[in-house]
């Protein structure tokens, strides 16, 4: 058994599980602020009850994000000691900034948001919600900044002893890779939040329960969904793709299944990359589209994998290709669903359209799938580098940790996260059953 593979699976498993939760909390935080703003401006308690309901779901997801996030920060040191040793002087900055600027803000004001409504009064309580939102988005910024540096190192100095020192803090924080990756990622979180909110609204409406709240959830979710789904594609997704073309051309070729350089390269919609024969099987293509999307010229040349030495190819091209296509395919379907739902909402016909309500209700898991596929694309696409162009993943592991020890703790995490999943589903199910109506006589 290969220790490198175990360390990669260890990180991949724990980070994939972890990110199921922050993507919901970062998106929901924005929608909760929106609901609370309406409540504050109109004085309508209905929106406050709606916000309170979502705050409970938010809190459960947030707590899951915290307990699964702690292992992430530790794993840099435990499983990737050689990487941490070399690059800690750079990415330690952004990780420490996250702790100092985001975690304290989030955790302090979440306590107040959850437990302090009576003590604070409506204005301060609104402010607590806003600060939790700001905190969670700052947190996302520093994590994406860390990843952006690994994708496209900037503001560093390679020292003779192999240590990578920080040369410019602004280079690190204003990395050209960072801004679009951050926006794309945060908009994706809003998409997840919107779909979850709309889905719960559709679920209640189809079951004829909590109908006034169901309509509020649907309206909020669909409006936010229309805006975020469009922004996800353009400009954020488009610019992210062009960054990959500019800075990781081999990755782009692998993502698109382009084995040979071509002028007027086609866009592959479906097909299976055949790594042995270096061609696409059963391709369904749109001629010249890849050239246009990448360079805005129909006949521009796009570099294929054959331009790059094989040892610098991403080491799992099929996985990269499929995850990228799943992300893009689902993103396109999301735009369609939300545009139709938005149109029906605008006509006032959404509540009377069971087909659309069923679609919205059942669509809920797919933003999670798309987001996960997006991160798989980013991380598998960066291979074989842990820091693109500077350090190979194989050189980053902890030399003293054997494959067997790594497997032991990976299995431990699998068991622990199975328990956590049960807990999460149980708590969310309870809140859904309880519903948004204020309980009578308990002061809830």
């Amino acid at each position, binding site marked *: 058994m290969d220790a490198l593979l175990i360390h990669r699976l260890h990180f991949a498993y724990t980070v994939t599980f972890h990110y199921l939760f922050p993507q919901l909390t970062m998106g929901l935080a924005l929608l909760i602020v929106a609901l609370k703003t309406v409540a504050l401006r109109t004085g309508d308690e209905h929106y406050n009850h709606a916000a309170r309901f979502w705050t*409970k779901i938010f*809190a*459960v997801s947030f*707590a899951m994000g*915290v*307990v699964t996030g*702690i*292992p992430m*920060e*530790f794993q*840099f*040191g*435990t499983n990737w*000691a*050689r990487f*941490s*040793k070399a*690059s*800690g*002087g*750079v990415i*330690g*900055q952004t*990780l*420490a*900034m*996250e*702790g*100092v*600027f985001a*975690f*304290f*803000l989030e*955790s*302090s*004001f*979440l*306590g*107040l948001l*959850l*437990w*302090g409504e009576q003590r*604070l009064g409506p204005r301060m309580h609104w402010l607590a919600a806003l600060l939790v939102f700001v905190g969670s988005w700052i947190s996302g910024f520093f994590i994406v900044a860390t990843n952006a540096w690994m994708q496209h190192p900037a503001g560093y*100095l390679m020292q003779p002893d192999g240590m990578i*020192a*920080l040369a410019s*803090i602004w280079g690190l924080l204003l990395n050209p890779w960072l801004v679009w990756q951050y926006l794309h990622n945060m908009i994706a979180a809003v998409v997840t939040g919107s779909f979850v909110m709309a889905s719960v609204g559709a679920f209640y409406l189809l079951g004829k329960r909590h109908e006034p709240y169901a309509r509020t959830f649907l309206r909020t979710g669909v409006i936010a969904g229309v805006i975020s789904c469009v922004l996800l594609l353009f400009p954020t997704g488009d610019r992210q793709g062009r960054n990959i073309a500019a800075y990781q051309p081999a990755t782009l070729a692998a993502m698109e299944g382009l084995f040979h350089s071509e002028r007027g390269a086609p866009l592959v919609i479906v097909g299976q990359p055949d790594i042995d024969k270096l061609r696409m099987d059963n391709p369904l293509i749109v001629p010249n589209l890849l050239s246009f999307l990448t360079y805005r010229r129909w006949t521009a040349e796009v570099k294929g994998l054959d331009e790059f030495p094989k040892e610098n190819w991403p080491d799992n091209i099929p996985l990269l290709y499929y995850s990228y296509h799943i992300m893009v395919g689902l993103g396109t379907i999301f735009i369609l669903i939300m545009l139709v739902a938005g149109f029906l909402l605008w006509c006032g016909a959404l509540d009377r359209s069971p087909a659309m309500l069923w679609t919205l209700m059942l669509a809920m898991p797919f933003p999670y799938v798309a987001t996960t596929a997006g991160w798989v694309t980013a991380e598998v696409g960066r291979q074989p580098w842990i820091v693109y162009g500077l350090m190979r993943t194989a050189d980053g592991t*902890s*030399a*003293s*940790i054997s494959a067997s*020890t790594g497997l032991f*703790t990976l299995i*431990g995490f699998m068991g*622990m996260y199975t*328990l*956590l999943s049960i*807990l999460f589903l149980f*708590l969310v199910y309870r809140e859904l059953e309880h519903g948004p109506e204020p309980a009578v006589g*308990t002061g809830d």
Partner: protein
Amino acid sequence: METLWFAIVAVMITVYVVLDGFDLGAGALHLWLARTDAERRTVLASIGPVWDGNEVWLLAAGGTLYFAFPVLYASSFSGFYLPLMMVLWLLILRGMAIEFRNHLSSPQWGAFWDSVFCAGSLLLAIFFGAALGNVVRGVPLDAAGSFFLPLWTDFTPGRAAGILDWYTVLIAVAALLTLAHHGALWIAMKTEGALEHRAKRAAAWLWWGVLGAGAAITWASFRVQPHLAESFRMRPWGYLFPALAVAGLLSMKFFKGGAAFGASCSFIGGMLTSAAFGLYPYVLPSNGDPALSLTIENTAASAYGLGVGLVWFVPGIVLAGAYFVYTYRSFAGKVPVVDAPSQRRY
């Protein structure tokens, strides 16, 4: 500059232990102090709004350590691989227990998660103590600055020591007693009636244990790590830190409520800063060849990184302190007795 960051990291770890210490201690004791379901809910309500924020100090301290001393972070986190993973699992289990306990009304499962919460808190206090013991005693560092420790060997703190030997076990027991005592004072400060009374009695008993353990670990630490005595001899102003601990320990006996809790903070803070002061400039001593020890110089990030870090760290941590003060003030005072599951706070 390295010295300043050494002090910052030491203070952050100390703040973490002082803050999370009381909720760990409260968790370790609550099975015995809080007898009824209502009382157990009251204990949970007293730590409910703050325990999560307290754990953030661990994360922030870890992040700061990573950025200021990356070589130390890489070496110690991979060297203490298994115990660290167990700490992570315990933190997860303990957080889960608190969540389940707050949301379940079944008495049977309530009792189960109470036990998990208690066991998690207890073991975490022990693990943190053992970790501190290992750092003071030193580890078998190699020339590349990494090491591997078996969990135990023959329980003597020599060159072939494991993670557990008589010295680190002693520190672990002392940590458990100290945090249990700290937690008892917290419960006494935050609750009323029979619960407050029992917590006060437990604190009075535990105080003798803390006194004994404090004396024992002081003697043992100077024996196991000779560098400590050298530090205090070279810079006598450092006696300030043990003086803080002694003052805290003695005054706890005579203070009540918030003042006693404050004195306990001063005791824990004094003990930890004494250890940090004594180890300086080492951050992870070698228990073999002293030349292989990790020091602030050979583990620190570049001068530019440390300098620029100061620019954002200072305003950031001042803000963080302000949120903390605001949160604790918002939840100041005794927690009302929670008498029925329907009175969940959220």
